[in-house]
């Protein structure tokens, strides 16, 4: 073995294996970290299984009846808790520095206590993370701001004046409605739902809602500092107008609500769209009695959470209880289908690219081994003239590859894990050195680079690298072994 100590080339070979292994481990760990974190976040707001309906008025049956039927079914044994919700498209409208801001939102009515049990709802409410159950009630500070707003007569009145002005110059119906049967828009809908319950001249009791963090904030790049900054357009205590559609007939309904807190899941898609209010308020606003449109189901901890198991044992079982066009049961993965598919596609492409890199690395190892063999070809001739068999010569080179591969893999694994576990410190160091931010935190909302070391991946990477090292040594070793002794001796 010792006669093969070609120090320089062996070193190059070990470094090449080491770098390959380390890169694969780091990339896979970061990729898997991102993917897991994203999955967690996608799942975070959603429960394990979701029941919904296309009926705009919600399920035909009251939620208690539905829950009873589900619990009595075979799926019932897997269910920990069910939370009824109403989800509906809506707009919110508010005043910000003289602008009348209107944004489309996804309005969800929830029972805060049950909702906190089925998903990560409670932990996403910015100011109430310490509470087990978040509350729609306004904090004292928010109440003070609300009272001050009322005093200053800001916001809402102005908005109403704008609306009156718009109503005055309303276009004639034929301008945009076209022909055919028309939906009549009743004009006598109450502007403010809670108002009728309250004495006329007292400040109306504010109804709190949670507004997505990105809905309530403007982000901009400060030209002086170059950093991305946020201004709160809505603060707890500010009023917003929420408009949606009634459940009983096609007509708009709206009401004034007060921001109680922000909803911040760190998924920009959710934070820029979600508005939560209490289930009872939304049911009242939409005139839907005790009906709900969704049922969020959390499975027991002991139930396997794999998609195939949940699909076969829970959603399919629940689906049997209802007409498929009336009620749809789906896992959270099915609900997030397109996004998860996008992640999978991304992962697949990245793996393909990595595989190509591995291919390049494999060929460089092949080249190095070819060089080692040609450097040693006279020695091979000497060995063969002394009676070494072809198999023996080949064996020496293959063992050499195993040895180099093993050393390279071991060092690469250590290096790769070292980088993975310290990736945030390394990233910071590079940012300080180069001034370029490698990982812009405001894009991903992650405060640090997520990593997830999967031991199976590490083992597979090592096995792969060893196989490539051995495979790339086989061809040059075979060529060397096949030489007649005199050819090898005369080789220059």
């Amino acid at each position, binding site marked *: 073995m010792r*006669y093969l100590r070609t120090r320089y080339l062996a070193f190059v070979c070990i470094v090449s294996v080491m770098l390959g292994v380390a890169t694969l481990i780091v990339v896979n760990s970061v990729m898997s970290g991102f993917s897991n974190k994203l999955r967690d976040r996608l799942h975070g707001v959603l429960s394990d299984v979701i029941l919904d309906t296309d009926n705009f008025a919600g399920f035909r049956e009251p939620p208690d009846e539905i829950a009873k039927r589900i619990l009595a079914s075979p799926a019932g044994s897997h269910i920990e808790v069910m939370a009824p919700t109403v989800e509906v498209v809506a707009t919110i409208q508010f005043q910000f520095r003289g602008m009348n801001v209107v944004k489309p939102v996804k309005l969800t009515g929830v029972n805060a206590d049950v909702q906190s049990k089925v998903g990560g709802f409670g932990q996403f409410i910015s100011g109430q993370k310490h509470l087990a159950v978040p509350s729609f009630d306004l904090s004292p500070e928010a109440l003070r701001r609300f009272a001050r707003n009322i005093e200053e007569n800001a916001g809402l009145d102005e908005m109403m004046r704008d609306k009156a002005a718009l109503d005055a110059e309303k276009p004639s119906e034929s301008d945009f409605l076209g022909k055919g049967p028309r939906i009549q828009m009743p004009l006598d809908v109450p502007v403010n739902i809670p108002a009728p319950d309250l004495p006329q001249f007292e400040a109306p009791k504010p109804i709190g809602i949670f507004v997505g963090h990105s809905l309530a904030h403007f982000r901009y790049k400060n030209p002086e500092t170059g950093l991305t900054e946020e201004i709160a357009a809505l603060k707890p205590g500010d009023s917003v107008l929420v408009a949606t559609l009634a459940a009983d007939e096609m007509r708009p309904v709206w009401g004034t609500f007060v921001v109680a807190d922000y909803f911040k899941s760190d998924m920009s898609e959710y934070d820029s769209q979600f508005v939560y209010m209490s289930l009872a308020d939304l049911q009242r606003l939409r005139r839907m009695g005790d009906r709900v449109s969704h049922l969020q189901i959390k499975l027991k901890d002991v139930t396997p959470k794999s998609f195939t198991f949940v699909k076969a044992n829970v959603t399919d079982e629940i689906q049997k209880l209802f007409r498929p066009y009336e009620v749809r049961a789906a896992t959270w993965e099915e609900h997030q289908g397109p996004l998860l598919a996008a992640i999978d596609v991304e992962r697949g492409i990245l793996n393909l690219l990595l595989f190509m890199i591995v291919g390049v690395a494999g060929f460089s190892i092949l080249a190095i081994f070819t060089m080692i063999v040609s450097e040693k070809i006279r020695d091979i001739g*000497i*060995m*063969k003239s*002394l*009676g*070494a068999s072809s198999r023996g010569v080949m064996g020496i080179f293959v063992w050499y590859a195993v040895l180099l591969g093993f050393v390279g893999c071991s060092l690469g694994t250590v290096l790769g894990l070292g980088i993975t576990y310290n990736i945030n410190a390394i990233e910071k160091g590079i940012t300080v050195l180069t001034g370029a931010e490698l990982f812009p935190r405001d894009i991903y909302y992650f405060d640090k680079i997520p990593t997830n070391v999967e031991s199976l991946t590490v083992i597979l990477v090592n096995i792969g690298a060893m196989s490539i090292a051995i495979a790339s040594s086989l061809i040059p070793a075979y060529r060397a072994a096949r030489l007649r*002794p005199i050819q090898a001796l005369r080789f220059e």
Partner: protein
Amino acid sequence: MLLVENLFKTYRRNVDVVKVLSGVNLTVEDGEFLSIVGASGSGKSTLLHLMGTLDTPDSGAIYLDGRRIDQLSNTQRDILRNRTFGYVFQFYHLLPELSAYENVLMPAFIRESTLGWLKTRRQWRKRADELFERVGLSHRKTHKPREMSGGEMQRAAIARSLLQNPRVLLADEPTGNLDARNGDQIVQLLRNLNKDDGVSIVMVTHNLDIVTATDRVVKLVGGRVAEEPAALHFTPRLLSAVG
């Protein structure tokens, strides 16, 4: 007895065809010290390589003690090279990474499995020690080839070729890279080995001065054995027979 019968060998390099041997017949008796002389390109080295199964002839046959050896399987030829033949080359061909001692033991490394080596290493080392003594190189055992002179390297190579008590020693220009004094020492060493151990030696050389130490001289001309042996009259055996 090593018998060469009507041996042909042609080398092809692209379109050029070089006829190296065209019908060589030769007999090497047991215990004989034979030298083969000839001009450069006369095929003497090729003949030696073919006799030692380092290469295969195009046609013709080579027999060792009546057994044909040029058509043996690779494995059998490996064994033959390892145990029956000993080789000494012009450029010594020692493995540069190993010490002189390890180089000499190399045929044993190749012969033995790991387990076999552990069992037999004492005997092999004893044998190597003897050989170092014999070639006068005991003080150089731990040296690498690059730390030794040409004559020393050649003596180490001879010790290596003798490790397994070969039947035939094949020496290809063993003095080709040495000065006259060192060359004489090497030839003297071979002569003594031949006399004391009875090992047959076939030596290829173009140096006519050293052939006087050998029993018989064969001259190759144009790939064939010349009719008239070149310097037959000067060989010691003949001289002693006459004397």
